[in-house]
């Protein structure tokens, strides 16, 4: 099929889709008057039931906790799949990680003929990355531990924590990035975060409660919104933060390894 034909076929198809969408949108309640019953039902009870004041987090980690377990495992499965896809293939070799200054020169070649294809980091980028690393770690932890009181949570905090590790790489330190995030530790953190979430849910069963029921103390009822309030919501958010951070560090590491270390094996030379 030529690109022109493909475009025409698409336009016919999308015209039908737009017609259906328009029909559906015309039947929706007007913008600003959503009649969904679940939202108001939860907002009316959430503070009393869970002592959490961040309603979205309470929904994610409590009312819809079971869905979020599934979502977490989608993330873990996707990162595992990516690791498999980005493995070293036949006919490739992985160089040892180096941070020799000569490697930062794109024209330098190592004795084996491979070339590290890494652009030279400018001083400004290095300084900005170094200056941002600390605040990023702090913000990441703050987000991961304040799901119950603010628009934050483990997913957002985890991504920010992983960003801090990427900043270490951006400051020109691939070795430091690898040393700060050894593969074994990252894998373990991912397992603890994802498995811990499931385990927190299972721990409710021996108490005679449903899976993922909130069985931890909720803090004093008179003062919702404390960091220690909301029982399992805060614990699960933190575990999600650990798992997401580990997953994204692994993801960044795999892509960097692919770009910097794995190269096509030079053809074997005869004698």
């Amino acid at each position, binding site marked *: 099929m030529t*690109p022109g034909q*493909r*475009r025409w076929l*698409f336009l016919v198809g*999308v015209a039908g*889709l*737009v017609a259906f*969408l*328009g029909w559906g*949108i*015309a039947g*929706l309640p*007007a*913008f*600003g*008057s*959503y009649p*969904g019953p*679940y*939202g*108001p039902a*939860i*907002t*009316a009870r*959430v*503070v009393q039931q869970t002592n959490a*004041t*961040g*309603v*979205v987090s309470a*929904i*994610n980690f409590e009312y*819809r906790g079971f*869905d*979020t377990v599934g*979502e977490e495992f*989608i*993330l873990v499965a*996707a*990162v595992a*799949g*990516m690791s498999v*896809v*980005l493995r070293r*293939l036949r006919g490739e070799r992985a160089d040892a990680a180096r941070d020799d200054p000569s490697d930062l020169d794109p024209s330098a070649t190592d004795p084996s003929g491979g070339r590290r294809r890494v652009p030279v980091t400018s001083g400004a980028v290095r300084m900005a990355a170094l200056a941002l690393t600390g605040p990023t770690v702090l913000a990441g932890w703050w987000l991961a531990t304040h799901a119950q*009181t*603010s*628009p934050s*949570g483990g*997913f957002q905090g985890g*991504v920010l924590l992983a960003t801090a590790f990427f900043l270490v790489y951006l400051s020109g330190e691939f070795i430091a990035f690898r040393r700060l995030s050894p593969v074994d530790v990252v894998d373990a953190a991912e397992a603890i975060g994802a498995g811990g979430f499931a385990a927190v849910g299972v721990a409710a069963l021996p108490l005679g409660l449903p899976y993922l029921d909130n069985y931890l103390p909720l803090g004093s009822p008179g003062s*919702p*919104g404390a960091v220690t309030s909301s029982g399992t919501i805060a614990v699960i958010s933190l575990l999600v933060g650990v798992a*997401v951070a580990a*997953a*994204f560090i692994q*993801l960044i590491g795999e*892509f960097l390894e*692919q770009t910097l270390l794995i190269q*096509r094996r030079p053809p074997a030379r005869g004698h």
Partner: protein
Amino acid sequence: MACFPFAVAAWILACGLYGLVTSRDLIRTIICLIVVQSSTYVMLVAVGYVTGGIAPYFSDVAGHPKTVDPVVQALALTDVVVEAAVTALLASFAIQAHKRFGTLDPHDLAEFKG
């Protein structure tokens, strides 16, 4: 314009689909998929909007004021996380496809079988 935000979501969806169909580069295809998925964020957040509603956070407000719908916001959060994971997986496929076949054009990749 009672349904304008929904029309915006439909428009973003159509733009992303057009890009997907006409793309000659796998990275561009992945970005178009992100655009398609972005339309669902607009749709979810627009659907849950309630006129005069505040953000669903009660840290500094008393009582039970009217809020926008928190359930669809939680769904949008789920959506973002899944998108990030899917994007990473697709990008890794693109890397390996480029290494193996030396091209990112899906039209040329279609020539390969198995």
